[in-house]
């Protein structure tokens, strides 16, 4: 089997890529996509740790991953709805332009 640390390294790299996207992209939808990448990195970790424990018969890792799916779906739905709503009111999807709360 592939050693565990490889999975963890991939997950870490994916998480960092996502973090880069969140910190640097200007478009709000791109930021949301980066967040999805980060959530996926978390999921890889959850499932990898589940698989490499001594007793994988306990499915907690998989169940956790499924709940992450739910959260990701809800987050994407509401997040994109917010972006569309903002676009409608301010004609922009650039995150920096939305600064009404920045005082």
């Amino acid at each position, binding site marked *: 089997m592939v050693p565990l640390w490889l999975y963890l390294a*991939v997950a870490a790299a*994916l998480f960092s890529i996502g973090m*880069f996207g969140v910190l640097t992209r200007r478009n709000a939808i*791109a930021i949301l996509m980066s967040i999805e990448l980060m959530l996926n990195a978390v999921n*890889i970790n959850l*499932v990898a740790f589940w698989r490499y424990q001594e007793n994988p018969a306990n499915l907690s890792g*998989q169940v956790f991953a499924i709940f992450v799916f739910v959260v990701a779906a809800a987050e994407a739905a509401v997040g994109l709805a917010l972006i569309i709503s903002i676009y409608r009111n301010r004609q922009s999807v650039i995150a920096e332009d939305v600064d009404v709360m920045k005082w």
Partner: protein
Amino acid sequence: MTVELLVFLILSALTLGGGMLVVTTRNLFHAGLYLMISLFGVAGLFVLLTAPFLGVVQVIVYIGAIAILIMLAIMLSPNITNLPNPFTAQWPVGAALAVIFFVMLITVVTPVMNELGADDWVNSDQLTVDTAGDVPADGIATLGEELVDPHKYMLPFEVASVLLMAAMIGAVLLVHPGKQAEDVIEDVA
């Protein structure tokens, strides 16, 4: 190099390469497609981790639903093909932070590996063969039983339903403001 390692490397290349392209592409539609590639790689990794149900679910939910939702949102917003400047001015700081974070994560991972007994962690099946147990033959049935088991995940299961309901109602309210909601927004603005 075993076949499994080869498959793993291909899948991680898909995942990371796709991810890299998602955060760097100017064309947002392409970014969405790369996101799908990346998510597909993750699905493959799930299958490789002997969680085939999760892999399939990843394709159904992430690629089939969430990514399509994102694509539709992308197509609803204008000027996506050639963003004048996709990155904020502070992008070097962000890149540096991401790299630092990555190095940090890797260094955190390493001692854990050592503690678990794989001294030579770069070159080993030591860790895995020794500690990883067998996956249950009928994992999905167990999953189904545990999800609705009152002593296990019944509450999260129902809460998930409530969360989805709230997300649906909230998002629809945001995107499709009825007459009253529009008035409220105008009052606030």
